[in-house]
Each structure stands twice: as C-alpha cells, then as structure tokens.
C-alpha cells in the first residue's frame, strides 16, 4: 500500500462514515458521562467484591476452582455485583447511543446532504449501528480487562484458561445485549421524528421490561396457578409457562446467560423434576456444556437484535428523504 499514496488516502466511503460516527460518539459529552457512570459503578461493585472475596470461599464449594469468576458475581448487599450493573446500565448505554441516530440528522437537515453524496443509502444506517457497536465493544472489553487486571493485582491469583474464556464470553454476551437495545433505539429513531420521543420510547421499553413486565407476569400466573395439591407435572408445566413468559424479556435472557457462564455449577435454567436431580453430583460444567446450556438464550438475543435491525433497515430504506 505504501507505494500508492493516492490510493491510501482514498478510504472506502463506508469507512469514512464509520470513522466520523465513531469520533462523534467518543467526543460527545453524552458518551463521556455514560462511560464515567458505568466505570464508577463497576469499580464500586468490584471494590465490594474484593472486600468480600474471602467470605465467598467456602469449603466443598463446587465452584471453588472458579475463584476468579467470583469477582464478577459476589456482593455484600450494599452494592449490586458487576453483572447486575451491566444488565441494568447496559440498556441505558445502548439507548443513549442510538436514540437520535437518524432523526437528529433529519432534523438538522444533514441527512439529505449526506445522502446526496455518491454513497449507498444503507451505508449511513449500517455505519451508525456499527460505529456504536464498536464503541460499546471497546468499552466493555476495556472494562472487563480492567476488572480482571485489578483483581489480579489485588488477589494475586491468575485466572485459569477456562475462567478467562468464560469472562471473554461474558463480555461478548454483554455487547450482544447492549447491541439489542442499540438496535431498538435506532429503530425508534427511524420511526419517530423527534429525538425526545424516540429516547422516551426506548426508556419506556426498558422500564417496562425491567420493572413492570415481571409484575404483569406475576399477576397473570398467580391467577392461573395450580393448587398445592396439583400433580408434579402440572406444577412443572406451570413453572415452565411462567419461565417462558419471563424469557420474552431480554434482561431475563441476559441474566440467565451470564449466571450460567460465570457460575459454572449452574446446570439447568428451568424447573427440574426429582427424576432428573436424582443421582447428580454437584460439580462445575465444562465451558462447552455451559455454552450449550445458554445457547437458546444467546440465540434469542441475537435473533431479537437482528429483527430490530432488519425492521429499522426496512423502514429507513423505504422512507422518502428529501431536502426541504
């Protein structure tokens, strides 16, 4: 490439848009505030984890060999653990990075200007999505490695290969989870003209899922709950129904998946019959089996993300855009 200086300068138009979007994100106050909040809360939860890690080691614990993973999962009750913070603040990050992706450009009359350039129209949407995703990925990997590094310095025990792989998968899963919320808010930003509306609707969905949906499911299931005298199969059927209703929530999918990945002794996510439990020995699952266990959750998250993206893509491409 060095010989052809001219060619080097002419970047692919998609790369140009991507670079621009990334630099926009990184320099925006919104992003800086968000990353500061997330970094602070995560460091706080890590502090509580580190002060309580000596209590977390119990004799005969099947997870005893996964000491390092406890950094991400334990808390003393005053401050939630790392994974709880990620599942709570991650959606906020996704929504805030995507809610004004298209409509602000439209309101500022820059959309038609950009699109009058010799580029494909979907470059804009794809670049907006990809730029936010890259920023989130870099940030989450940085946070994850920050926790690992600080943990390493403080407790002095290096993670095993499996622990490291589990943490990497956990970070990828978190990125996927935030990507879902990002796509949802991009969809809203395509749908609604006002950035405030799209931001509010994104936050409304988030609040609905994290606060109200669980209550609604509880209300519904209470009314149809089988009596205490019901047979085992009825009770299991009811529990499974309740769980599948809850699994519509992306937070539920995310928390199930992260719990399984970071607590290797979790062997099943649904209700278990006595027949399945009889004869089991408590012990950690190998990474492959843990991944297989959460694969439906991961599939669900990916599918939801792709669906949101497809909808916003469709909506954006079919829209009539003109300069006023």
């Amino acid at each position: 490439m060095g010989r052809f200086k001219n060619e080097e300068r002419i970047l692919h138009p998609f790369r140009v848009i991507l670079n621009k979007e990334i630099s926009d994100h990184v320099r925006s106050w919104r992003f800086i505030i968000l990353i500061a909040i997330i970094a602070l809360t995560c460091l706080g939860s890590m502090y509580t984890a580190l002060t309580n890690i000596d209590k977390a080691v119990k004799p005969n614990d099947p997870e005893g060999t996964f000491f390092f993973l406890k950094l991400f999962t334990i808390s003393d009750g005053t401050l939630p653990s790392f994974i709880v913070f990620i599942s709570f603040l991650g959606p906020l990050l996704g929504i805030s990075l995507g809610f004004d992706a298209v409509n602000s450009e439209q309101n500022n009359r820059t959309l038609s200007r950009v699109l009058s350039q010799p580029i494909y129209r979907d470059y804009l949407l794809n670049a907006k999505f990809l730029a936010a995703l890259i920023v989130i990925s870099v940030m989450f990997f940085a946070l994850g490695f920050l926790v690992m590094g600080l943990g390493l310095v403080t407790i002095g025990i290096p993670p095993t290969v499996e622990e490291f792989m589990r943490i990497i998968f956990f970070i990828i899963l978190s990125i996927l989870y935030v990507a879902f919320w990002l796509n949802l808010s991009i969809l809203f930003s395509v749908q609604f003209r006002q950035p405030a509306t799209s931001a509010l609707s994104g936050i409304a969905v988030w609040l609905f899922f994290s606060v109200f949906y669980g209550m609604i499911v509880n209300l519904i299931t209470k009314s149809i709950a089988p009596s205490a005298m019901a047979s085992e199969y009825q009770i299991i059927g009811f529990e499974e129904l309740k769980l599948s209703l809850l699994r519509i929530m992306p937070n539920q999918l995310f928390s199930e998946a992260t719990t399984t990945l970071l607590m290797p002794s979790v062997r099943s996510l649904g209700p278990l019959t006595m027949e399945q439990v009889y004869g089991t020995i408590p012990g950690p699952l190998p990474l492959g089996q843990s991944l297989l266990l959460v694969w439906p959750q991961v599939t669900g998250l990916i599918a939801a993300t792709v669906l949101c993206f497809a909808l916003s893509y469709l909506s954006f491409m079919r829209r009539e855009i003109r300069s006023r």
Partner: protein
Amino acid sequence: MSVEKRWFRLFLALSLGIVCLISHANEVTESVTLYTPYTRISVPPGESIDYAIDVINNSKELKNAEISVSGVPKGWNYVLKSGGWTIGQISILPGERKTLSLKVDVPMKVNKGNYHFKVLAGGFDPLPLVINISEQGTFKTEFTTGQSNMQGNVNSTFTFNTNLKNQTADKQLYALMADAPRGWNVVFKSNYQQVTSVNSEPNSTQQVTIEIKAPDKTEAGKYKIPVRAATSSSAADLELEVVITGSYNMELTTPTGLLSANLTAGEAKQLELVVNNTGSSELTDIKPESSVPVNWGVVFDPKKVDKLPPGGSARIYATIKADKKAIPGDYVANIEAKTPEISSKISFRISVETPMLWGWIGVLIIVVALGSVYHLFRKYGRR
C-alpha cells in the same frame, strides 16, 4: 527286789558277752567297711547319680585302702571324689570315717534293666551297687508339639509351640529348617527372638515357637509343612499341618482404572468392566447389578459370570443409557458385582452432555436471521 537284781545282772553279763563277741568278730573279718544307704537306685537314662559312700575304719590302727570302682558298664562315666579331689587311695584313722562321693553318669543310649557294679576298697569287702534303668534309653533328639494341626484363613498366622528335646549326651547346636511351599513364610522363635538355630544342653528341652504365614492367594486346602532340627550327627523331624480355609474376595474395576465417562443425554455408551477374583476360593454366579439415576438403563453382557477361579478375571460389558431429559453435568452411577458370598461396588462419575442438536438449531436460526438481513440488503440496498 532280789529277783529283779538277779535278772538285771544276767542281762548285763549276756549283753557284755555279745558285744565282746561282735567286736572280736569285726576285728577279725573287716577292719574297713564301705557304707552307703541307697544301694539300689532306679533312674531313667541320661540321669547322673551321686553316691555318698562312707569308708569306716573299725580297727585300732590306721588303715590305707585303694579305692576303685569295678564292673561299671562300658560307656558310663564315673568320678570318685573326696575333699575336692579325684582320689585313688584313702587313709583313715582308727575308729574314724571318711565320706567319698561317687558320681555315675548314666548315658542316654542304654537298655532297660539292672546294672551291677562294685566299689572296692583294697582287700576289704566290696560295696555292691545296683542301678536300675527304668526305661529304654535312646540316643537321639525329640522334636514334638502338642498340636500339630491348625486351621485358619489366608491372613492368619499359625503359631505352633514345639519342644526340642536334646537326649544326646552332648551339647548340641540345632539348625532349624522348614520345607514350606514357595511363598510361605516360616519363622522360628526361641525366647521371643527370631532364630535359625538353637543351642541345647544335653538332656534339656528347648521351647521353639514356629510361626507360619501363608501367601496371600493360597488356595483353600491342607498343607503339610515339614520342619527339621538338625545337627551334624542327628536330626529330628516334625510335620506340621496347616488347613487354609477359603476366602472370598472380589474386585470390580475397569481395565484402565478410569471410573468416569462422558455420555450424551439420551444416548448409550459401552463401558468395559473387569471382575477380579482376589480371594482364594472359586467364585460362582457373579451377577452384575446397577443402581443408576431414574430412567437410565444399564444392560450387561454377559448377564452372569458362572465361574471365576482364584486369581482369575472376567470382562463384563455394561451398556449404559442416559435419560433423554438428563441435565448436563455429573451423575453418579453405581455398578455392583454380587455373589452370595461377597460383593464389590464401584461408582462411575458420568458427565452428561446435552446433544448438539439444539445448538445447531440455534445456529440455523441465527443464519436465517442474518440471511434475511442480507436479503433486505439486496432488495432495498438501492445498489
């Protein structure tokens, strides 16, 4: 009164006359007399007899007498002593007596019966002595035990208490040997010390303890263990008998010793098992049994091992099938081999894996979703 006096005088005169007569006779016939109270003694072979012989000088003058013993059977030893010396002649003051000591050793090898010999004192009357040997003497070693047969299992120690009697005339050093089958351990103990030989004084008895231990995998049965105490000249044999009762021992394991397996839920896997007969009796009708989680199945091939000789081993193939609904992770499956006498149990740690099918379906869903996005790109990309 006068009558009594007369009688008394008569008695006195008579007795005086008798005393004069007797003393006169002694003076004439025997001026030196040999005397011992026990002239006929009955002893078993191997004893030694001490005679105390008084030599009495009845005369009024000093007497010298050659002292000797004659007629002692061949091979017998005797010593004649007085005042600490072995003597051949003795001199006695008138009216005095001297004591001689005669020690006669009766040998071991001597026939039953009466043996006569005389102690001579010069030309005076000899003293005849008789030794009666009460039993037939031998010239050998006796090795005996009160209980020569013992029964026990393979692991027990058989302790025989034996007596080693030296009936020879000499001090003997006995080498102790056992002709045990290979692998048997025979230990000789004397005075609680492990020994290979014992010293024995003539005509004394040594107690020797023999401890016998059978090898681990000895088959049940009777075993004869000859033991021998030997010197260069003589030897004594003793045959000990040990009866080993059979022991039942069985070990169930796998050829590699690995007791864990991976199994996909709903699928079956064959495990190879080995039954070892580690006891000393033949095992018959060994049945493998399993206790596994609910809805799991185990099929054994063969269903029964008819016969297994001691030290033998047999293979059993167990096909274990996991429940379709088994959750991933570790389950424990117990497999037991049973005979009426004994059983052996192993626990398998079975790691259940979920089938990959659902994983691939998940991948398929993702591919379909991404494919539809690609389709959107193609259709609405305005390229």
